[in-house]
């Protein structure tokens, strides 16, 4: 233990430099002041909230909505910035949960009053008696197999030409036993194939395209912006697994807790009215959607222009809920179709 030179004066010099930078940094950020924990995705994009004449008098209710930083939730961002929620007396805070895993528990535990989640996850939640119910449609597939926000991507020379060829192959999906595996299985079944031979590999969306390109997996399910990225890597799209299952499939819904809805019917009605308006607006104003993407995601201008937008019908599609529940039973990750009235 006698002469151990742990740190020497050179580290000290380096440290002093770092400390100086750090001090400047802290000084710089203490100016920016607000450490509000829930702002728009990239901190910028402060939604202008100019209370109008008639909302001034109204009692505002603060609600928190759990969303994910993907294309699907553009309408609610637009609705907040357009003031649709304010008109209904709602002061909305959008919480960006990463990956959506936090959203259902967040709504169940009252962290969020409302949330956005894919339809199959909600069906699983209902079958587990989590006490959730749908408020409005969230996002839907388009009607076109080749022009949808989702796709199933393979290498051009893979020999996989149609969904049936996926038999015995490995496919990357972002979640096992969920909406993507259900719909891909159905896609293969409809094409005369046997989906039970497919090996699904769980990968995060950003990793799926690189894995297909490098040949680690034979195919991968993508959503925007990765559908565009995949086509840029010269991958071939077998078609949207959502559209193949049912054109216009309702992929996700906005939902709330059953108890919360029973105690606050007015707030739920107000949310429904505002989100319906937002969905309609987003559906007919793609440019507004692309502009909103610049605010709450990190997509660059080129990407926001290139992505294929989904559809945002305002009506909840009950047939989709039934279909996805049946597919979940067929795939065996649900034993029986539960009472789905809460999701319609």
């Amino acid at each position: 233990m006698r002469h151990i030179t742990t740190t020497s004066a050179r580290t000290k010099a380096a440290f002093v430099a770092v400390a100086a930078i750090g001090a400047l940094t802290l000084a710089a950020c203490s100016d920016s002041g607000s450490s509000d924990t829930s702002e728009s995705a990239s901190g910028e994009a402060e939604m202008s909230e100019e209370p109008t004449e008639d909302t001034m008098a109204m009692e505002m209710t603060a609600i928190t909505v759990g969303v994910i930083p993907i294309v699907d939730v553009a309408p609610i961002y637009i609705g907040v910035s357009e003031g649709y929620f304010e008109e209904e007396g709602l002061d909305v805070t959008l919480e960006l949960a990463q990956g959506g895993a936090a959203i259902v528990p967040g709504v169940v535990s009252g962290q969020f009053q409302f949330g956005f989640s894919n339809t199959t996850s909600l069906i699983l939640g209902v079958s587990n008696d989590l006490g959730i119910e749908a408020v409005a449609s969230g996002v839907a597939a388009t009607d076109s197999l080749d022009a949808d926000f989702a796709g199933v991507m393979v290498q051009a020379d893979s020999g996989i030409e149609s969904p049936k060829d996926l038999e015995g192959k490995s496919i990357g999906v972002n979640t096992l036993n969920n909406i993507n595996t259900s719909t891909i299985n159905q896609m293969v079944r409809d094409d005369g194939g046997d989906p039970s031979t497919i090996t699904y590999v769980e990968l995060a969306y950003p990793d799926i395209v690189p894995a297909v390109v490098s040949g680690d997996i034979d195919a991968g399910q993508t959503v925007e912006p990765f559908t565009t990225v995949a086509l840029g890597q010269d991958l071939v799209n077998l078609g949207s697994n959502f559209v193949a299952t049912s054109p216009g499939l309702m992929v996700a819904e906005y939902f709330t807790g059953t108890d919360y809805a029973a105690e606050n019917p007015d707030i739920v009605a107000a949310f429904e009215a505002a989100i319906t308006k937002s969905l309609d607006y987003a559906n007919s104003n793609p440019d507004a959607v692309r502009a909103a993407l610049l605010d709450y995601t990190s997509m660059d201008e080129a990407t926001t222009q290139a992505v294929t937008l989904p559809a945002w019908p305002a009506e909840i599609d009950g047939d989709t809920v039934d279909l996805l529940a049946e597919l979940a039973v067929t795939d065996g990750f649900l034993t029986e179709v539960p009472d789905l009235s809460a999701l319609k």
Partner: protein
Amino acid sequence: MSSASATLESPATSGPKPRTRSRRPRRSRGVWLGIVGVLIVLVGAETLSRTGIVNPDFLPPVTEMYATLFQMLGEGWFWESLWLTLRGWAVGLGAAMVLGVLAGFVIGSIPFLRAFTNSTIEFLRPIPSVALIPLVVLLWGTQPQSAFVLVVYAAFWQVLVQVLYGVADVDPVARDTARSYQFGPLRIARSVIYPTALPYIMTAFRLAAAVALILEITAELVIGVPGLGREIGIAQSSAAVPETYALVIVVGLIGVAVNLMARFAEKKMLWWHPSMRSEHS
């Protein structure tokens, strides 16, 4: 242990010589070696990407990463996120240090408690902090409290165990001497246990500082607690590859800064300790 003690003077040259002799060239050589090492890595990564050995769409050239990084430095959200991450790290680390040192002193000083809690500590310590994610999400969602709990849980055990070793390392003769001089428990803690345990506490601080940063970023990335980690997640899901790497570089630099800071603190606090002193009596 490194034997590159820069100040060892040959015994032949006796006499009062200025001690700074011959340190400067060595020091700068170390710095240069470090810089060269970093440059080789950067140039290597750049080459891999530019030549297409690795797909540049998934690993952009280093120059592009840094261009994006400098662009980010001009944007408010970046500083906001950096601040939130550093704040979460510092608060969690501070709480873990206070709790760990207090618990370590109390448990370590009382043999019965030490024996009583030993198995429990050994059971709880290996539980990865990330296993608590579902629990904290249920309790606090994406609020900073979620990250705080993960950071404290991970860092606390590091501190506690180090402090327990430190307290156990106290020379029993010194402690008995203090007792026979009628020192009270607080005074013994201050004048006997503390000096012995301090090097261990500083080691704990260094380890805990790194662990706390890792858990803070993880909580942001996985749960969506606001901070740099969440921005990495958003950049990833937006297919903004250069931005993702730029943010990762920032996190790496914070890690280096944290480590330097901890070592610096160690030097400052332990200037009197034999391991830190280069004079040899």
